[in-house]
C-alpha cells in the first residue's frame, strides 16, 4: 500500500511514537513521530547525546525500536528478515558517524563493497568508484589503505560508499564534522545532487553552516524528544 503525505508526495519514512531505550535505563529516543516524503532532504539537529545517531540507526534497522512503528516505503521494517531485510538495506545508503571502514583495504575497495553486495558488474563498479572519488576530491587516494587517511578523508570515503549503489534513501551522520568550508561545500553539493536525482536524504548534524540557509525541513531533538521543526513548505 502506497501512502500519500499532506503535500501529495509518497511517504518514504514513517515513524509513529517510536522510543528507544538502551539497557539499563538510557532513554535515547522518546515518543518520536515523524513522516518524511520520498525525495525530501531532511535535517536532524540537536546537542550531543540528543539521539540523532540513534534515529538513523533505527531507520536503517541496525537497531530495533523498543516501542513504536517504523515504516519505510509503507513496509514495517521490524518484521523484515533475511533476504528481504538485505534487499532493503541495499536500497539504503548510510554514512556512519564512526565510519565503519575496513582499514586494511584500499579506498576503492571500501567504496565498492556496497555495490558488490548487489552484484553490480566489475566495470560498472570501477567507473562509479572513480567518478565518486573525483567528486569528493579523493581521486589521488584511490589505492590508499583507508587506515592511512586523515579523518576528513575517511569521512568522505564513508559518504562515497553510502551513495555508490545509488540508494533511494541516504542517511548521513555528521558528514562535515572534520571538514573545512570548501570540502564541506563539495560534500553538500554531492548530497544535493543525489537528492535532485530523487533520493531521500536525512542528515544528522550540529554544523549549522549546512542548514542555516536551507529551505528544507530541520528537526531539532532534545534529550531524545522532538523539540521543534523549522523550514519546509507545508
Amino acid at each position, binding site marked *: 500500500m502506497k501512502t500519500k503525505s499532506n503535500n501529495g508526495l509518497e511517504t518514504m519514512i514513517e515513524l509513529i511514537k517510536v522510543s528507544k531505550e538502551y539497557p539499563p535505563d538510557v532513554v535515547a529516543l522518546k515518543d518520536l513521530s515523524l513522516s518524511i516524503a520520498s525525495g525530501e532532504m531532511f535535517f536532524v539537529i540537536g546537542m550531543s547525546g540528543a539521539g540523532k545517531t540513534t534515529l538513523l540507526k533505527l531507520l536503517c534497522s541496525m537497531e530495533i525500536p523498543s516501542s513504536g512503528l517504523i515504516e519505510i516505503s509503507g513496509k514495517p521494517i521490524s518484521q523484515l528478515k533475511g533476504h528481504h531485510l538485505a534487499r532493503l538495506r541495499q536500497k539504503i545508503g548510510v554514512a556512519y558517524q564512526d565510519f565503519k571502514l575496513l582499514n586494511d583495504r584500499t579506498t576503492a575497495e571500501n567504496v565498492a563493497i556496497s555495490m558488490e*553486495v548487489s552484484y553490480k558488474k566489475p566495470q560498472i563498479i570501477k567507473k562509479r568508484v572513480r567518478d565518486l572519488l573525483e567528486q569528493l576530491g579523493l581521486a589521488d587516494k584511490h589505492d590508499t589503505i583507508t587506515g592511512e587517511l586523515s579523518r576528513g578523508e575517511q569521512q568522505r570515503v564513508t559518504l562515497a560508499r553510502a551513495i555508490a549503489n545509488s540508494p533511494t534513501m541516504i542517511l548521513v551522520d555528521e558528514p562535515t564534522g572534520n571538514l573545512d568550508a570548501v570540502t564541506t561545500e563539495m560534500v553538500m553539493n554531492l548530497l544535493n545532487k543525489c537528492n535532485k536525482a530523487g533520493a531521500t536524504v536525512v542528515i544528522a548534524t550540529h554544523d549549522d553552516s549546512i542548514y542555516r540557509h536551507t529551505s528544507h525541513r530541520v528537526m531539532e531533538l532534545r534529550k531524545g524528544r522532538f523539540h521543534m521543526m523549522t523550514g519546509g513548505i507545508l
Partner: protein
Amino acid sequence: MSFWLTVFRQVGRNIRQTWASQLMTLLTVSLSVLIFAFFYLIYANMLTFGEKLGDDLSLIVYLEDEPGPELQLQLTKKITTFDEVEKIRFISRAEAYQRFARQLGQNQDVLNDMPKDFLPPSIEVVPLKNLRSLNQVKLFSAYLSRLPGTLKVQYGQDWVERFYYFTKLLSIIVLLSGTLLILTTIFMVAYTIRLTILGRQAELELLKLVGATNNYIRTPFLLEGLLQGIIGSSLGIVSLYALYEWIKLRFSGPGFLNLFEFSFFSPVVSITIICVSILLCTLGSYSTMQKFLRI
C-alpha cells in the same frame, strides 16, 4: 556471473589471510583420509582373501574304521542333518596311503617299511559357501566329532582362527580411524572457519549492514570447506596410491604380497571416500557458520 566472481575473490582473501591454519587443516584432512584409507584397504583385501580361503575350506573327519557302504550312507545322512553340504567324499586307508605317497614324491621310499594301512580312513566334507563364519565352522566341526567312530576333525583350526581374529581386529581399527576421520575433518574445518570468521568480524558486520544477503556471506565459507574436502581427501587417496605402488615395486617378486593378490580400491570406492570427506568438510563449515554468523 558477478556473484561467483565476488565469491571467488572472497575465498581468495580468506585463504590469503589465514593460509597457515588453512594449510594445517588441509594436511590434517589428508592425513586422516590417508590413515583411514590405509587400514580400510588392508581390511578390504583381507576380506577378499578370506572369501577365497573360505572357498577352499574343507573339514577332514578321521575315522577309527573303514566304513562299509551301509555305514557310509548312514554317516552321510547324519552329516546332512546338521546342514546341507557342498560335497562329501569318503577316503579309504588305501586311498589315503596313495595320496600321501604322491605328496612325498621322490621321498616315497620312506614309506617302504610302513604297512599300507597305517593311515586312518577319513571323510572330506566341503561345507556350503554360506557356512563362512568361524562360529558356524566350529559348531559343524564339534558336531562332526561327536559322530560315532570319529577320531578327530581337522580344518586348519589355528590358521582359520588366527585369520578370523586378525580381520576382526582390523575391522575395529578401520572403525576407529573412520571415527577419527569424521572428527578431525569436521572439527578442524570448523575451527579454521571459526578463525576466519573471528578475524573478519568487522567486515562481516559491515557486509550485513550494506545489505549482503546470507548467501553472499555464506557461500565463500561453504566453498572453503568444500575446497578443503576436495583437495585434502584427494591428496590422501593419491598419496595412499603412491605408497601402494611403491610397496608393490619394492616388494615385487616372491614374497608376502604375492601370497595373495593385493589390489587397490576400485574407482568407485575411492570416489566414495572423497565424496564423504567433502560432505564432512562442508558440514563442518556450515555448522560453524550457523553458530558464528548468526544469520
